[in-house]
């Protein structure tokens, strides 16, 4: 729910003041009931109830001025202040036994209900100013500056200033270059710095508690080491690009090259548990992201009878590198799941997967193999894969590139649009496949038992200790069951290429006749048949939808039993009064 009050005041013909106070809030209530004899541990039923309230209150005051200077310059200046307060509160109650079935109330709890609650508040106060200078409409320079004071950072480190400069130049207008072939051209460049605060309560910790033992309260030391010296995060970025139009704007390109470095990133860094803690809040690292973004818009066909074919293509490639880490750290473990870590490892792209793999022929020593066998598995004499005791980088969740193509055909009241998108590269650790192979329930585990459970046996391709290549000079087979059960300690075996392409959306629309709608007092309207997630093509991974990431936070690349993105087919009906 959103509400606000605003006051505008025209001080004179070129200065305006604007004051605004607004609150955006939501309340969310969830209840999950479990009947008697459901699949919980004792069949006693129960329920969980969860209420979340969150709000954001903003108070703004801005003063803006617009002035024509000389004859060719226009200057806009804005100055202002903002106060933002975020509030979050949640209350949960769990009941793990129902006395009477079917009554989901705390009064009916067969064991003591376990309630928990949490609240957090954060306030950021800002002062900001910006200046925009325009010359004859085709050259623009913008300068901004902002200072924030945040409640979540320690006094002394909680004030941070960040500026930006950007400029755009429409050179086709400036030099009067426009023609049918080359219809418009613009270049732009910017440099920005953005500061960011921490989450609430990361400077000091409080004791946690668990359920009382009889009437004895139970408190525990929290697992995260707080940090009283946190500094704000800082992202510095530059970007250059050009927007070009051809054939009277029937073909257009937007090209952007960017380079962004975030330093003092605030992360819960995993530490040796022997320290008594699991994680430590730190300004932990410096990560650089750079790459290209390309957008192409085209209208390949435009007929006199009204038929149009529009096409939009986007493509982007991001590179990342962890350039610096706190102290002597080689790596930060961002997340660990079934012994596969997602790490920020110095010199590697952010999001490296670190785990055990099967032993492979590897340089620079090529121990147990020759140089031309590089990359092949090193088998033992019985033809088994061997676990590489040294944990290594086995993948990275970042794709090489992502892209999409949308084609839209319209003719009279009909229009049809088709969106295809996907990614090339990027790895995913599918725990579904890892367990499924271990348990032998996946189709892939039929390999090696096509005739019977032990016939013909599974052949691991690789180098045998005597130098023969299994599958070429030798045919040493193991039980299929042993091969797949053996993946237990080798997560690297189920790290697969997540390349995919999806038929994301097909939409067939019909614009209702205006004359007909007018009879009902409407201005416009349409009906459309829309299908989403219609087809998936993932050549290098089976059983799962590689797009379903485990976690929406900075941990991606892990999948475990997720539902694939749902396919939906629906009809929409829209009217415009």
């Amino acid at each position, binding site marked *: 729910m959103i509400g606000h009050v605003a*006051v505008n*005041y025209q*001080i004179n013909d070129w200065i305006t*003041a604007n*004051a605004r106070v607004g609150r955006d809030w939501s309340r969310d209530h969830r209840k999950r009931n479990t009947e008697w004899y459901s699949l919980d*541990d004792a069949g006693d039923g129960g329920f969980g109830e969860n209420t979340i309230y969150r709000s954001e209150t903003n*108070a703004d*005051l801005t003063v803006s001025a617009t002035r024509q200077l000389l004859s060719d310059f226009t200057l806009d200046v804005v100055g202002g*202040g*903002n*106060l933002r307060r975020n509030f979050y509160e949640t209350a949960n109650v769990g009941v793990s036994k129902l006395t009477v079935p079917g009554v989901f109330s705390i009064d009916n709890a067969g*064991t*003591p209900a376990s309630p928990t*609650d949490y*609240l957090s*508040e954060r*306030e950021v*106060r*800002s*002062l900001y100013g910006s200046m925009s200078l325009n010359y004859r409409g085709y050259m623009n320079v913008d300068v901004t500056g902002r200072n924030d*004071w*945040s*409640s979540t*950072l320690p*006094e002394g480190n*909680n*004030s941070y200033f960040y500026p930006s400069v950007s400029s755009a130049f429409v050179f086709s207008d400036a030099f009067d270059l426009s023609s049918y072939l080359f219809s418009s051209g613009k270049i732009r460049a910017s440099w920005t710095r953005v500061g960011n605060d921490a989450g609430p*309560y990361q400077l*000091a*910790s*409080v*004791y946690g*508690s668990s*359920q009382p*033992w009889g009437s*004895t*309260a*139970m*408190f*525990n*030391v929290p697992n995260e*080491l707080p940090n009283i010296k946190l500094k704000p995060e800082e992202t510095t970025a530059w970007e250059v690009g050009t927007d070009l139009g051809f054939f009277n704007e029937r073909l257009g390109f937007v090209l952007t090259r960017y380079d962004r470095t975030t330093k003092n990133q605030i992360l819960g860094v*995993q*530490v*040796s*548990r*022997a*320290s*008594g*803690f*699991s994680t430590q809040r730190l300004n932990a690292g410096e990560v650089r992201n750079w790459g290209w973004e390309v957008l192409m818009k085209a209208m390949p066909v435009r007929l006199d009878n009204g038929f149009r074919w529009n096409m939009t293509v986007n493509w982007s490639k991001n590179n990342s590198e962890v350039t610096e880490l706190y102290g002597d750290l080689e*790596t930060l473990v961002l997340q*660990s799941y*079934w*012994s596969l*870590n997602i790490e920020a490892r110095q010199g590697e792209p952010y999001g490296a997967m670190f785990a*055990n793999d099967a032993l492979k022929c590897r340089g620079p020593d090529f121990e147990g193999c020759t140089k031309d066998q590089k990359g092949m598995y090193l088998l033992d004499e019985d033809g088994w894969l061997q676990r590489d005791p040294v*944990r290594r980088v086995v993948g990275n969740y970042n794709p090489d590139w992502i892209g999409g193509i949308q084609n839209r055909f319209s003719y009279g009241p009909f229009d049809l649009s088709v969106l295809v998108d996907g990614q090339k590269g990027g790895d995913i650790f599918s725990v579904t496949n890892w367990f499924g192979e271990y348990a032998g329930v996946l189709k892939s585990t039929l390999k090696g038992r096509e005739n019977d459970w032990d016939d013909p046996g599974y052949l691991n391709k690789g180098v045998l200790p005597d130098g023969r290549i299994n599958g070429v000079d030798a045919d040493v087979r193991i039980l299929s069951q042993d091969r797949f059960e053996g993946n*237990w*300690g080798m997560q690297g075996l189920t790290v697969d290429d997540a390349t995919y392409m999806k038929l994301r959306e097909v939409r067939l629309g019909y614009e209702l006749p205006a004359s007909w709608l007018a009879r009902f007092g409407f201005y416009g309207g349409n009906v459309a048949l829309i299908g989403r997630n219609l087809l998936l093509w993932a050549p290098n991974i089976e059983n799962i939808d590689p797009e379903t990431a485990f976690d929406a936070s900075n941990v991606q690349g892990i999948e475990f039993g997720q539902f694939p993105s749902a396919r939906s087919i629906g009809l929409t009906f829209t009217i415009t009064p």
Partner: protein
Amino acid sequence: MKNKSRVAFSALLVGLVFAAVACSDGLTDLNENPNGPTAVPVEFLLPTAIQGAVGNAWGSGQSLSHTSIWPQHTVQIQYPDEERGIVRPSTMDGYWSGYYTGSLKDIQTVIDIGVETEHVNAEGVGRIWKSFVFHILTDYFGDVPYSDALNGEENTLPVYDAQADIYDGMLADLTAGVGMLNASAQAFGGGDLLYANDMAAWRKFGNSLRMRLAMRLSEVDPATAQAQFTAAYNAGGFTSNDDNALLDYPGGTYRFPLYANYLGRDDHAMSSTMVDTLKSMSDPRLFLFAEPAATDGEYRGHGNGRQSLPAGQSLGDISRIGNFWRADGETTPATVLTYAEVLFLQAEAAERGWISADPATLYMDAIEAHMNQYDPYGVGPTDTEIADYLASPAVAYAGMNSIYLQKWISLFMTGPEAWSHIRRTGVPHLEMGPDLQLSRIPVRMPYPDTEQALNSVNLNAAVARQGGGINDLVTPLWWDAG
């Protein structure tokens, strides 16, 4: 006029916003966490430290999947991975961090608060319990961070201490801890889950634990073992089953961990080694430890270290673990340390000539104490059965091996100590299962992967000095002389 009021109103707004913004005083007060206390009395931390450690060590993961199967008390009948020497790395992470970030960090905080506030019993009991938890940990993994550990505020890369030094430290802490207990000083309110603020009982527990640790060194450092043992013995350990260190589960939220496991899983059963041993001696504890097989009512174990059941056998042909720990186990206590074990330790010390007492008498008393320790729960052998058993030729005292065998039986459902016992004494002799994928039954747990990722320099140094430089399951611990 109207114009003036509008100017005044906007000036007021401008003033308000800028005043709020420019003055950042008090802003950081908003960051004081309202969700928990910043200080708590030790009486609320001690129970967490006790419950945490016992919950881990007696939990189904550590006991039924590791420390009770390797001494062949019980067996995995589903997912026989650990049974075959295949340990899950993520499980090791869980055990390691469960102790260090849980009970150990909590008990270290009890000690620190005790020192700060001159709460002598907090420091004393804290040191005793810390040694209890650390001996489980080092007996799992060997060299572990000890002197540098639990100090993340100063050091997040703790060095691994040699196990010999850890034993020195624990024995010293037990001696000092027992020495500072004071019955008339402040205690723990409702927070002493083991002894309800009885400092004399804690003193006996400290001395008894010290006897256990001293005896651990019998093969590797007999002189220290003897000196520490006799000192602890003279200071006075348990004198009856009333002194037993038991964690009595109240039921409900806190229930005996194997009962909680029983409610959802049926992955574990009796080892044939235990069932056959009890049968061969007509031991009445068979009917307590094991349930008859569902199919034919027979008492029949399953062999350890096997991938599958013998041909023609089904899961119903195998005896499950006794109902006392499973179906009827909601409030069954965890046997942290018992009088029976202390008597076995003394019998061994007497046999070694460290103390002047009759080993045979202590041996018989130990068996009797163990059989009687179940009396309060209305289970276990009757007095007649006990008398008959003690009089039977199979039980007659025949030196050290008798003590070791009976102690192995008595440590049933006391996983960590049973595994340590079999590693130190090798009695009874255990056969390797046919599908065991190692050169021997595991004698240590491998270090967790998180340490490789987060503390590799110190970990690698520890692995290198413990022999082989390989992080495996078959390199003996320092005190394990074979």
